[in-house]
């Protein structure tokens, strides 16, 4: 589990460094794969059964395979592949990620001092905050999508460790929601490309007041 935590932190840090959409998406797939591994470890250690392995398998099917595939397909259709940000901005988001890791530890120590698995709880807080940072600081539609899924992964991990997973039917519902959300966001992204000839959300500034 310790190795898992460290590699997860590393991958999420890496996530803030990528500007190229293909690599960022592959990084997201690796991140989801680690979440799936954590899910299987926790699930099987609490006695197998349907609830033990089904969420892990679903994570692999939905988040490791389907979502990156859908995003990569959209990326292929885009001509302007580079995000319009400077290197400084990337460094900023890494710096924010670093401080949110520290903040994550502080939050966990302050709120749930007696909880077991301090490191992994802090990691999930770190993922939630990094996801938010990505949504706020990145302007390309696909990067915002990746931020959203990072955040969702963080919340999922938090639930996994704190409560050993939600009841099965709720987890299934959450998977379905994530799936539909990605499908809809992909549709919207391709529509953005058709209408604006770019997927940079900075062009979405017409509605005011």
């Amino acid at each position, binding site marked *: 589990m310790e190795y898992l935590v460290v590699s997860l932190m590393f991958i999420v840090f890496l996530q803030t460094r990528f500007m190229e959409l293909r690599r960022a998406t592959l990084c997201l797939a690796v991140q989801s794969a680690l979440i799936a591994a954590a899910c299987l470890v926790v699930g099987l250690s609490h006695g197998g059964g349907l609830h033990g392995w089904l969420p892990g398998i679903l994570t692999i099917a939905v988040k490791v395979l389907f979502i990156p595939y859908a995003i990569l397909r959209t990326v292929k259709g885009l001509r302007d592949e580079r995000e319009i940000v400077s290197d400084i901005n990337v460094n900023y988001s890494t710096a924010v990620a670093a401080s949110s890791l520290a903040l994550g530890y502080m939050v966990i120590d302050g709120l749930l001092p007696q909880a077991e698995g301090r490191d992994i709880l802090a990691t999930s807080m770190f993922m939630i905050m990094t996801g938010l940072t990505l949504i706020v600081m990145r302007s390309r539609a696909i990067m915002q999508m990746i931020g959203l899924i990072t955040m969702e992964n963080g919340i999922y991990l938090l*639930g996994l460790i704190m409560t050993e997973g939600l009841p099965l039917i709720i987890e299934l519902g959450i998977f379905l929601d994530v799936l539909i959300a990605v499908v809809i966001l992909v549709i919207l992204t391709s529509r953005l490309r058709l209408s604006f000839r770019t997927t940079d959300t900075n062009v*979405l500034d017409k509605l005011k007041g």
Partner: protein
Amino acid sequence: MLQYILILLCLPPLCAVLALTGRFDNNLLHWLHRLTATAVGVCLALLAAKFDAAVPYVDDYFYVDALSLWVLIIITTLYVAASWTARSYLTREERCGVLKGEQLQTGRYFALMQLFCWTMFIVLLVKNLGLMWVAIEATTLISALLISFKFTRAALEATWKYIMVCTVGICLALLGTLVLYYAQIAALGTNNPLSWVFLHQHADALDPALTKLALLFLVIGYGTKAGMAPMHTWLPDAYAEAPSLTSGMLSGALCSCAIYVLLRNLVILLPTAGSAMMSSMLMFFAVLTVAVAVPFVVVQRDVKRILAYSSMENIGIMVAGIGVFSALSIKAVMLHMYSHAMIKFVLFYIAGTIIQEYQTRNMMRIHGMIKDVPHTAAFWLTGMLGILGLPPMGLFFSKFYIMSALFKEGHWLAGSLLIVLLAGVLIGILYHGMRMLCGEAQRQPLGDLLGAVDVPVLALLLIFTCIVGVGFENLPWLNNLLNHAVHVIGG
């Protein structure tokens, strides 16, 4: 009882699937849509007739009590009204709306509308707080497709903002739900996970530190969905850019759903988290929401955005009413939810009609409606007076009760601030509305386009709010239902 619930949950998706197959022509589709909605309405009426407000219905997955029945009534009324007015709206939209000259995908629209209402029914019928979350997220996703229905640039922008802000907010609500589940496991074990009934019975046993944390996340999360400031940024865009029928449903039905879920969660959290924290938090958000809305109402140019900001004002008032949390204020919030939903639906519908008639959404370019389009003008005037809370429309009574509850329970500051802000809203809406109604037309409308079916439907909605607002205490069934809803929440 169960059979009614199952019918309620089976008909809309069935209709959606049929509409998506594309085997029907437009005429048949319209009737399919109308009949499905009417059947659901009849089914709900039968359910309500059999239902004893004092005895909630519980089984493994579903739970119906007075509170959920009341919100179900609100949503089903709008659902039936929207389906009966859909035909003339869509025909007009094809003829002279934004979709002029385009092949309108009626099947897709109806399928999405049915699924949207279906997800809201699920929110109201399930027992489990986790499944409630899942259904609320589903309403966001389905309504996103409804908002971007025309796929214009503005609609895409509005949808992107809507989906990003709302999904992040709803993720925070999931975090809150997780914390609540953690508190439940710590105090009560793993039986009946997140079941509302079970948690309601054992609400006292939860750990106060955890419930306070959960309260924070849940209020912010579901508050985003309801449109509380400062998480409201999606709201004016989404309401203004969606097709008008959808705007009415979003403002009336979806907002009621979000407030319903918030109430359900509050009931669990309050015994341990304490009402002081909840009260001050909600009061702050309420005043902030109204205060943010007022300047935009006053300087507004867009006829649908002004209605969106007026929705924010009403959400603020409802949140203030929940913040007071006395029996009087909760009952008033229930009434307010109803009247606001009905009147706002009518107003959005009429705003859509005005846009089609005048071919502009700029209120400054519309004058002389009374002379040129008397039917539309009559509804516009009545709806406006209704939303401002003038008697005898229902909102007058509910606003009055909420205000009096505020002062009775000693929230002097919030109460006085709200009254001042409400005066600002009144000035803004009356000024713009009256300018549109009176004067000389510089721009000739295409004619009075309100259809033959629209007039009775919209008039009925307005009359319902009068009847419910004025006479709820003299209608024993209704009064009983409302009292039990208040009892469920425990004000």
